[in-house]
C-alpha cells in the first residue's frame, strides 16, 4: 500500500510542477497584447464651421437692380442724402438713396404679392403701413392692419423734413398719428402718445410701424436680416429652407418678469442688449440699420423668416402699449385673462439709418451704431489703458451653507489669500488684472441683500480689505466690490417685501426661489424678491457714501445692469422706462463717489456709466433660421470700453473659446476660489463645479500670455473690417492697421506669406 501511495504522491508532485512551469511560460505571453491607444480622431472638415455659431464667407453678389418709384407716388421731402416718396393716402412710402439710386419700399412689389397664395389677412397686412394688435370687447387679443381694419387717413400735414399722417381705424374707433421724416441719412418714424385716441371699447395692445420695409421674397434678393440676439445674428435670405414654426420675437432689454410669466423663457437664451435691427440687400450694396430711440423699453424686435405665414423675410420693431396678463384669484391659480387698463404712456420713435457701398453690411452697421452712440456721448474715448490687457478675476469670498442647527459660513477666499493669488498670477506673467470680489460681506454671497455691510470678519475684516485694495492699487489693479441692487433676500433692515418689493401686474409680490437641492426641500432654499428701482437708488446712494468712507473706489454692478422690471405696486408704480431712468441715476450717483464702475452684461442705457463690461455675450441663441453669428456688439464697442467674456473655466471647449475671445476682441475671465469647489456642495453656489485656483493658475497664465501678445496691440483701436476668408478662418482688421487672423480649423492655413497653425491665431502688420 505505502509503495503505491508514494508513487502516487510523486506523480502528483511531478504533475503540479509541470503544470506550474507551463502556466508560467505561457501565461506571460498573453498579456503582451497591444492595447489600442485612445483614438483621438481630429479630421478637419469645412462642414463643421458651417454651423450658425460661426459666420460664413460672403460671396460677391451681382448688382441689384433698384426698384422704380411708381407714378402714383409724390415727393414728400428730400435732403442731401435721401428722397421720401409717399402715395396719396400714405398707405406706403418709398425712400430713395440719392447717391446709389437704390429705392427702399415699405411694401413689397405688387407683382410678387399677387403670385403668392396668401390669405386675406396677410394680403391686407402686406399692403399696410402698420400692423396693430388690440383687445376686443371680450378681452381677446386680435391682429389687424390698416387695410383689414377699414382705416382711413384723416389728415396729412407737412412737418419740417417730412409728413405727419393721422390714421383713423374705423373698426376699432380709434385714431393715432404717425410722423415720417428725413434727418440727414436717416428716416425717423414717430408716434406721439398724445395723438393716440381710443374712443371705442377696443384697446390697442401694440403697433408695428412699416413692417415690410425692405421685405424680401425668399431669396430673390441676396442679403440678410440682422437681429440683436446676443452678440448679433444674421438671417440670410434662402430659397430652400426647412419649415419654421414661429418668428423671432425678441424682447428688448429682456423679459419684464413683472408682466410676463417665465414659462416662456427658454434656457440660456441670449439677451438683447441693444434696441437695434437691420437689413442688407446685397452685401456691399445697400443696407439700413434700425435703432429704436423712444419707447425702446417696452418694445420687441420681430423678424420673420420665409415660410412663417408668408414667404417673405421681414423685420420690424413692435411697440407694446398694453400687456395681457393672467389675474389669479386663488392660491391654486384659478383666475382669468385680462389686460392692462391704462396703456404705457410713452412717445415712440424708431430711426432707420441708410447706407450703401462698402459699409452696407453688418460691420458697417456696427460702425454706424458706434458713431451714433458717440454722437449721444454714450461712448467716449477710452482713457487709462495700460500696456497689457486686463484679465478678469472673479473671486468668491464667503458663502452660506445649510447646517445642522442654523447656517454656517464657508470661507472660500480670504482677503489675504486673494492678495497671494494676485501676486502669484502676476509673477507668472499676468501683468494686468481686473479683480471683482463677490461675497465680501458678512452674509456671504447669498446671505443678505441689500444689506451688505459689515465686511466679513472671517475674510479679514474691513482693514484687511482696505489693505488689499491699496496693494492692488499700487500694482495698477482695480479691486471691484460686487454689489447687487436688484434682488433682496435674507434678513434686511430697511427692506420689507410687502412695502418695497416689486409687484407683478396682478398685484402679487414677485418672488423667485433659488433651490439648493434638486429633489428635497431644504431650509437653505432662498426666496428672492426684487427691489423697487427707486429704493435701489436710495440704497445705492447711501452705500456709495459708505464705500467712499471705507476707501473703496471701484464697484461691480451685477444683475442690475441686465434685469429691467416694471413695478405695479399701487403705491410706487413705475414703468420700465422710469425704472431704467432710476438705474441711470443709480449708476451716476455711484460714479459720483467711485472711480470705476464695472457692470455685468449691461443693457445699452447703462453703457455710458460702465468703465468695464463683464460677461458680454460672445454667442447668439442659434435659432434654426439664423444662419450666422456675428460680433455686432463687439465691433460697436471695441476700442471704447474693455469688455470681458463669460468665465472661461466653465466652457466645455477651452481651446476653441480662446480663439473666440481673440476673434471678438474680448478679454479673458475666470471665476476662482482659493479653496476647492466641492466645499460649495451644500451652498447655493453649488453650480460652481470648478474654481480651485491651484488647478487653474498655470492655464490662466499661459492663456493670458498668448492672448495678451496679440490683443494688447489693438487695445485702443476700433474694428474696421471683418472678413471670413474661408469656413472657420476669420480676419479682423483694426483701425491701426493691425490684423488678427484666427484659424479654427484642424489644419494649418496659409495667409499672405505666413502660416496660421491649426486652432491658433496670428497678428499681422500695422505700424
Amino acid at each position: 500500500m505505502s509503495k503505491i501511495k508514494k508513487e502516487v504522491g510523486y506523480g502528483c508532485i511531478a504533475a503540479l510542477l509541470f503544470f506550474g512551469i507551463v502556466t508560467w511560460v505561457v501565461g506571460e505571453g498573453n498579456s503582451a497584447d497591444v492595447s489600442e491607444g485612445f483614438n483621438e480622431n481630429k479630421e478637419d472638415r469645412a462642414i463643421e464651421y458651417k454651423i450658425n455659431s460661426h459666420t460664413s464667407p460672403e460671396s460677391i453678389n451681382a448688382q441689384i437692380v433698384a426698384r422704380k418709384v411708381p407714378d402714383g407716388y409724390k415727393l414728400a421731402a428730400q435732403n442731401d442724402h435721401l428722397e421720401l416718396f409717399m402715395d396719396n393716402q400714405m398707405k406706403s412710402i418709398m425712400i430713395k438713396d440719392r447717391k446709389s439710386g437704390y429705392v427702399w419700399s415699405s411694401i413689397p412689389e405688387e407683382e410678387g404679392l399677387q403670385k403668392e397664395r396668401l390669405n386675406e389677412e396677410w394680403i391686407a397686412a402686406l399692403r399696410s403701413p402698420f400692423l396693430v394688435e388690440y383687445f376686443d370687447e371680450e378681452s381677446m387679443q386680435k391682429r389687424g392692419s390698416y387695410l383689414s381694419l377699414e382705416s382711413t387717413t384723416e389728415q396729412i400735414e407737412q412737418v419740417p423734413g417730412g409728413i405727419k399722417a393721422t390714421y383713423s381705424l374705423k373698426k376699432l374707433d380709434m385714431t393715432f398719428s404717425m410722423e415720417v421724416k428725413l434727418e440727414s441719412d436717416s428716416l425717423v418714424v414717430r408716434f406721439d402718445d398724445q395723438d393716440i385716441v381710443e374712443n371705442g371699447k377696443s384697446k390697442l395692445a401694440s403697433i408695428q410701424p412699416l413692417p415690410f420695409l425692405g421685405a424680401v421674397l425668399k431669396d430673390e434678393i441676396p442679403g440678410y436680416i440682422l437681429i440683436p440676439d446676443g452678440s448679433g445674428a444674421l438671417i440670410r435670405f434662402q430659397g430652400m429652407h426647412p419649415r419654421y414654426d414661429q418668428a423671432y420675437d425678441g424682447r428688448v432689454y429682456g423679459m419684464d418678469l413683472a408682466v410676463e410669466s417665465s414659462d416662456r423663457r427658454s434656457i440660456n437664451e441670449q439677451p438683447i442688449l441693444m434696441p437695434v435691427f437691420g437689413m442688407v440687400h446685397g452685401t456691399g450694396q445697400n443696407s439700413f440699420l434700425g435703432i429704436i430711440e423712444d419707447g425702446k423699453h417696452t418694445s420687441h424686435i420681430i423678424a420673420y423668416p420665409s415660410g412663417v405665414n408668408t414667404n417673405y423675410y421681414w423685420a420690424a420693431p413692435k411697440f407694446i402699449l398694453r400687456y395681457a396678463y393672467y389675474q389669479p384669484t386663488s392660491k391654486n391659480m384659478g383666475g382669468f385673462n385680462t389686460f392692462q387698463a391704462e396703456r404705457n404712456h410713452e412717445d415712440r420713435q424708431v430711426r432707420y439709418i441708410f447706407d450703401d457701398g462698402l459699409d452696407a453690411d453688418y460691420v458697417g452697421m456696427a460702425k454706424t451704431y458706434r458713431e451714433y452712440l458717440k454722437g449721444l456721448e454714450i461712448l467716449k474715448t477710452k482713457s487709462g489703458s495700460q500696456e497689457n490687457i486686463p484679465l478678469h478675476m472673479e473671486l468668491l469670498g464667503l458663502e452660506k451653507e445649510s447646517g445642522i442647527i442654523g447656517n454656517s459660513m464657508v470661507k472660500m477666499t480670504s482677503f489675504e489669500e486673494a492678495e497671494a493669488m494676485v501676486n502669484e498670477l502676476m509673477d507668472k506673467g499676468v501683468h494686468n488684472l481686473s479683480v471683482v470680489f463677490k461675497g465680501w460681506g458678512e452674509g456671504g454671497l447669498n446671505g443678505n441683500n441689500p444689506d451688505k455691510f459689515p465686511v466679513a470678519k472671517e475674510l479679514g475684516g474691513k482693514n484687511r480689505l482696505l489693505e488689499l485694495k491699496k496693494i492692488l492699487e499700487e500694482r495698477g489693479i482695480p479691486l471691484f466690490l460686487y454689489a447687487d441692487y436688484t434682488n433682496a433676500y435674507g434678513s434686511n433692515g430697511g427692506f420689507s417685501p410687502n412695502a418695497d418689493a416689486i409687484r407683478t401686474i396682478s398685484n402679487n409680490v414677485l418672488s423667485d426661489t433659488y433651490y439648493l437641492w434638486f429633489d428635497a426641500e431644504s431650509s437653505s432654499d432662498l426666496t428672492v424678491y426684487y427691489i423697487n428701482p427707486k429704493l435701489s437708488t436710495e440704497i445705492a446712494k447711501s452705500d456709495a457714501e459708505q464705500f467712499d468712507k471705507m476707501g473703496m473706489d471701484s464697484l461691480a454692478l451685477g444683475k442690475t445692469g441686465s434685469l429691467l422690471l416694471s413695478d405695479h405696486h399701487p403705491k410706487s408704480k413705475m414703468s420700465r422706462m422710469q425704472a431704467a431712468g432710476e438705474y441711470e441715476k443709480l449708476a451716476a450717483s455711484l460714479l459720483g463717489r467711485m472711480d470705476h464702475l464695472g457692470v455685468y452684461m449691461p443693457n445699452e442705457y447703462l453703457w455710458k456709466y460702465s468703465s468695464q463690461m463683464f460677461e458680454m455675450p460672445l454667442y447668439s441663441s442659434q435659432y434654426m433660421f439664423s444662419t450666422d453669428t456675428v460680433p455686432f456688439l463687439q465691433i460697436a464697442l471695441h476700442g471704447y470700453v474693455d469688455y470681458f467674456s463669460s468665465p472661461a473655466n466653465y466652457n466645455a471647449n477651452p481651446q476653441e473659446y480662446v480663439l473666440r475671445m481673440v476673434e471678438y476682441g474680448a478679454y479673458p475671465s475666470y471665476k476662482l476660489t482659493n479653496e476647492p469647489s466641492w466645499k460649495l456642495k451644500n451652498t447655493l453656489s453649488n453650480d460652481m463645479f470648478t474654481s480651485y485656483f491651484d488647478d487653474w493658475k498655470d492655464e490662466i497664465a499661459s492663456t493670458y500670455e498668448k492672448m495678451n501678445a496679440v490683443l494688447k496691440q489693438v487695445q485702443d483701436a476700433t474694428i474696421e473690417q471683418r472678413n471670413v476668408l474661408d469656413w472657420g478662418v476669420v480676419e479682423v482688421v483694426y483701425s491701426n492697421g493691425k490684423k488678427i487672423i484666427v484659424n479654427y480649423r484642424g489644419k494649418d492655413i496659409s495667409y499672405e506669406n505666413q502660416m496660421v497653425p491649426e486652432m491658433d491665431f496670428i497678428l499681422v502688420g500695422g505700424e
Partner: protein
Amino acid sequence: MVKCKSILFITIIMLLLPSTAFANAPYMTFTINHDGEPILTQSAYLPTGVVDGFNITLKDADTGEEKSVPLSSPEDIFIDSKDHVYVADTGNSRIVVFDQWGNYLQTIGQNTLSKPTGVFVDEEGTVYVADYGREKVFIFNQDGKLMKEFGKPDSHLFGGKNPFKPMKVIADKRKNLFIVGEGTIHGLIQISQEGEFLGYFGGNKTGFNLTKMLQRTFYTQVQLDQLMKQLPPSATNVAVDREGLVYTSTVGSRNDSIKKLNVAGKNLLPDLWSYSDITDITVDALGNIYAVDSFRGRIIEYDRDGNILFIFGGTDEGNQRLGLFKSPSGIAVSSDGRLFIVDKQRNNIQILKATEFTTIVHEAIFYFMDGKYAQSEGPWIDVLRLNSMFDLAHTGLGMSAMKQSEYKMALEEFRIAGNKEEYSNAYWEIRRIWLMENSSRYMIGILLLFTAVVVMKKLYRKYGFARQAVDGWKWFKQRKLTAQLLHPFRLMRHPVDGYWELEAEGKSSILSATILLILLFVVRVFEIYQTNFLFADWDVMKVNLFTEFLKVFIPFFAWIISNYLVSSINDGEGKFKDIYKGTIYALSPYIIFAGPVAIMSQGLTRLEIVLYDFASTSIVLYSAFLLFMMVKEIHGYEIGQTVKNIFLTLIGMLIMALLAFILFGLSNQVTDFIYSIFQEVKYRVEN
C-alpha cells in the same frame, strides 16, 4: 448602480439658477452623482451641424428634371463601419445614404419600400430594412439591389394569429436577424438568414402593479376577463455592439427601459436607471451607450457598466434653437464620436459633437474600463480639474490609489464619490494594516487591565482597598433618582419583576422617565451622526433635526395616548403615567445600546454587515418584546388579551393619523377659500 431621484423638475429649476449661461447650448448638461442627484456640468455635446436633405436630388422620370427631395419623417438612422450614414426616410419610402459630413451618396429601395422604419448595415455592407408598410424585412446589397425579402414566418411556433409588423431590425455576427415587431410582447423575433423562425429573444416582464394584484385576488373570473390584459411593453428599438451583445430600448417601463442582453437573453444591466420613453439606443466603439428619450428630448450617455455619464438635450417648444428636438426618433454615433440624431417632426438630422471636456472623460473611462487604473489617473485628474463634482472621477482615482496601495487616499476618494463598496474594501485594507501593527499592543494592554481589575478586587476584599470610592459609589446608587435611572438595566434582565417594581415599589418616577425620554432623542441624534456611512441609509447632510424630533415623538405619544384609551375600555389596570413610564423603560435597550452599536459600526466594513444588522435588529426586537411585556404587566392581561390590546392600539394610532390628515386637508381648503375671496374682493375694489 445608482438609484436616481426624480429629474422631471430640471426644466423648472434651470430657469432659476442665478448664474449666467455656461456655454452656448440651449440645454443644460448634467451628470449624476452617487446619491442620484443631478450635478451641473459643462456641455458634453454641442450642435455642430444639420442635415435637411436638400442636397438629395431626384431625377423625374418623365421630364428628366432634377429636383431636391429633402427628408420627410425619418424614423431610423444607422452608421456603418465605413462611417456611411443610412437614414430610413419613412415619408419618402426610401433609405438615403450620406457620408459622415452630410454629403448625399445614394438612395436605396426607392421603388420597393413602402414605409421603412428600421435600417441596419452589417460588416459586409449588406443593408437590412424593416418595412412596416409592407410588413416585410428587405435585404439589399451595397449597390441597392434587392437580394432577399422575408415576410411573416411560416413556423407554427410563431403563432398564426400573431401579426408580423417589423419596425426595427439588426443582424448579429452569425447573420441572424433580430426584429422588433409592433406589439410583439414576447421579445425580439429571431430569424435566420434563410427566413426560418428561431424563437423569441429577451422579452420584457410586466411590472408589479398593486391594483392588478388586488384585482386578481378579489375579482371573479368574469370580471377579470373584461379587464384589459396587462401585457409587458414591447421594445421600441434594438442595437448591437462590437462584441455582439444586443441592446433593447422600451417605452413604458421604468426598469427595463434599456437592456443589455447576453446570448441567453439575460439582462446584464438590471439596475440601470433611465427615463421611461426611450425610443432609440446606440452603442459606440468604446461600449458607451447612448439613449434618446423622445418625450423630453433628452439624450443620456452611459458608460459600459451602466453608470450615467451625461444627460442633456431638450424639446423644442417653439423657440427653434439648434440642439433642441421636436420628436427625436433615432440616434447613431460616428467613429469620431459625433452623435447623429434624426428628428421625425423636424425632418432633419442634427449632429452633435463631443466637447473637449467629454473627450477627456472618454479617455479616462477607456483606460478605467480596461483596468488600466494607473493610466487613467492623468485624465481623471484633468476631469476633476474641470469639474470637481464628477463622482466617477473620484472613483477612478480611488481605484488607481488602491492599485498603488495608497489606501488612505483611496478611502478619501471613495468617500467623496460615495462608492460604498470600494470604500469598504479600502477600509478593510487599512484596518488590516492597523490590526497587524497594533493588535499585539492592545492585547497586552487589555490583559494588563484585566489583571489590574482582578488584583484590585482581591485587594478590596482582603484589605478594603479604595473603600471610600466603593462606598461612595454604593451610596450614589442608593439615591432615589439614580436608582430610577439605573432601573432599565434590571428591567432588561427581569422584565416581569422590573415592571412590578416600576409600578409598585416606586422604582421609577415621571422625572426619571422624562430624563430617559430626552436621552432617547439624544441617542437617536448620536446614532444619526455616528453610524458609519456604509450602513446608513440617510444622508447626514440632509438630516433635518426638527423632522427627526417629530419622527421620534409623534409615534411615541400617539402610542401612549392610543394605548391608554384602548386599555381603559378593555379593563386595563394601568394609569396614564404608568403607561408613559413603562413605554420609555421598554425602549431602554435602544437607549443603552444604540450608541455603542453606532460606534462599533465605525470599525466595520461591508463584509461584516451581518454583525451590524444583527445588533440593530436585536435591539429592535428586544424593545418590542419589552413593550409587549409592559402592556401585559401594567394592565394585568393574559397573553391573548395583550395581543388584542396591542392590535387595537395600533389601529387607534392609524385612526388618529387619519383624523389629523383630514383636519389638515380641510383647514387648507378653508384658508384657500378665504384667501380667494379676499383676493377677488381686493381686485374688484381696486377696479
